[in-house]
Structures are given as C-alpha cells and as structure tokens.
C-alpha cells in the first residue's frame, strides 16, 4: 500500500478505533454504575460489604 492511500484511508480507520474506544468507555461507566450501585442492593452475595 502506497503512502498516499494510507493517508487517505487513515481518518476512517481512526474513526473506527475512536468509536470502539468510546463505546468501551461508555459501557465500562454504564455497566459500572449498573453493577456497583445496584448489585449491593439486589445481589449482596456478589458484593459483600
């Protein structure tokens, strides 16, 4: 692959990486709130205090 093709295709590739990364962060935070806030109440055996 020549350098020009690599440069032209890089933005889409960076977007893909950025999307997956931001999705992972969102899931980490979202599920973190879900499991760590709700589980002590609803599944106390998994989160002993």
């Amino acid at each position, binding site marked *: 692959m020549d350098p020009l093709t690599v440069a032209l295709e890089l933005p889409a*590739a960076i977007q*893909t*990486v950025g999307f997956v*990364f931001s999705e*992972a962060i969102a899931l*980490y935070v979202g599920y973190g709130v879900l499991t760590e806030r709700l589980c002590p109440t609803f599944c106390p055996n998994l*989160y002993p205090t």
Partner: protein
Amino acid sequence: MGIVGLTWGGLILFVGYGFLVGLLFGFFGMGGSFLVTPALLVLGYPSTVAIGSGLAFVFGTATIAALKHRDTGQIAYSLGSAMILGMVLGVGVGKELVFRLDALGFADTVVGVAYVVLLGAVGLFVTCDSLRGKDRTKQTSIKFARRLQRYQLPPMLPVTEETSVSGWFVAGIGLVVGVISGLLGVGGGFLLLPVMLYAIGVPMTIAIATNAFQIAISSGVGTLLYAQSGAVNLPVVTMLLVGSGLGARIGSVASEIVDRARIKQYFGVLLLFGSMAITSKTVGHVFDIAVLNRVSIVLIFGATVLVSAAVGYTTLRTLRDGDATPAND
C-alpha cells in the same frame, strides 16, 4: 427489518453471544476473540473481516478490562510496556501476511488450519496440565521462570518484589504473540497467560490484569491497521461489545469467587471445542460438505453456552456453600 445493517435475529445473536464471550473473558482474563473470529468465519464472513472485527472486539473488551483492573492496581506497567513494543510490531507483520494470503486466495484455509493447530495445541497443553495436578505444574513453572530470570540482559524489569526478567525476552515474546494476533485476529491472551505464568513467573492476578493492558493497546493498533483496509464490521462489533460489557463485569466478579484451579480446566476444554469447530468448518469448506458447516456452528456456539453455564453454576455453588472470598469492589 432490523437496525444498523443487522436483522433482529442477528442483533439478538451477536448481543447474546457477546454476553457469553464477555462472561468467559472476564472470568479467564482473555480477549475471547478465539471464539469471536472463528464464529464470524463459520457464519460466512470473509477471513479478513472476521480477523479485523475480532481484533476490534478485543480492543473494546480489553479496554473495559484494563480500566477495571487499573482500579484494583494489579497491572505491571513496565512489564506490559515492553511486551506491547513487541506486540505492536508483530500485529503489523501478521496483518500484512493475511492480506498477502488473501490476494493469493489462501487466507481462509491457512487461517482455518492455523486456528485448528493453535487452539488444539494450547487446549491440550492446558487440559493435560490441569489434569496432572497443581503441584507438578507449580514446580515446572518456577524452574523454567527461574532459568529465564537468570539472564541479566538490561533493561531488567521487575516481575515480583524479589525477581526480575530481561526486557528483551519480554519484547521478543510480545513480537511472536503479536504476529499470531495480527494473523488470526486474536488478542493473544490465551498464549500470553500461560507464557506469563510459566515462562516469566508472573503471579496469576497480575498476569491477568497486565494481559488486559497489553492486549488493549496492541489490538487497538491492529484495529487501526485492519480498518485502513475496510475490514472491520462495526455493527457486528458494536452488538458484540454491548453484550460483552455486562458479561465481562459479571465474569470478573465470578473469577474472584471461584477456586483458581478450576479456571484452567474450563479454559482448556473451551480451546479444544474451538479447534474442533474450525476443523469441521475447514473440512466442510475443502470437501464442500454443507452439514459440516452446521456442525461447526453448533460446536462453537454450544461450547460457549456450556462453558459459560459451567462458570455460572460453579460461581453460584461456591456462593451457596459460603466459600466465597470478598470481591475487591
């Protein structure tokens, strides 16, 4: 009918499958890609897309896991950084190999055979090791790790408080694992975990946490390389990640509850099932036997469901018996 280019059936399949793979990943400390990439292959995706999407999936799950493990402070950053250097180089080499094979028309067969050999070999090793008993394994691993740690080639990286290993060995191991990662679309956790345990002598909890960190970075680079060639199916990766995010958290908690000795046995059996599924798919493809395609789908999805159920059952039984150790959360 459906959304983001997937039918409702496909959507449910990928979210559900992602959940189970996430559960296993959280439990075993591996990317789970050795189940994702073969699953995409048996579902008929081209090998380049299956590998690129597998790497993108691993990037997401490993990022989530690395964040989770960072909270518990178990990541060995210096060791991980040396490994990453080698892995990033290796991923680039692996990706080049796949596209060259694809241009020659050999990618599907070569990737299939490589999966059979690799999953079969690692699966057999782990299962036999597990059946032999813990004491012997421990002795062998300590002996091998000590031999490697004897070579004082700077820079030396700390493994435990008393031991250290040469950064060159670590980067070299990373390079080999990186090539396999880029070639097969796997994070490499199923190779890195035994290597870190047996060859380098890293304690289990630190090995699992450091793996997540290493794999997050190297699979991110791999995703970038494959995305440049348009070989990442984002809708599939997104749905798999949505399911696996929750599964990984549950699996991570389960790994703190269940006896570690049980972990390796499940791990080995799972790899062997993966190997059998790809064997069936490759033979079916070469000899044009349609029924073997269905067999491979049943094997790979069935193994995931069964081993996930085994993990869930063991966790619940341990909790019921009151043997659980307190979770770090």
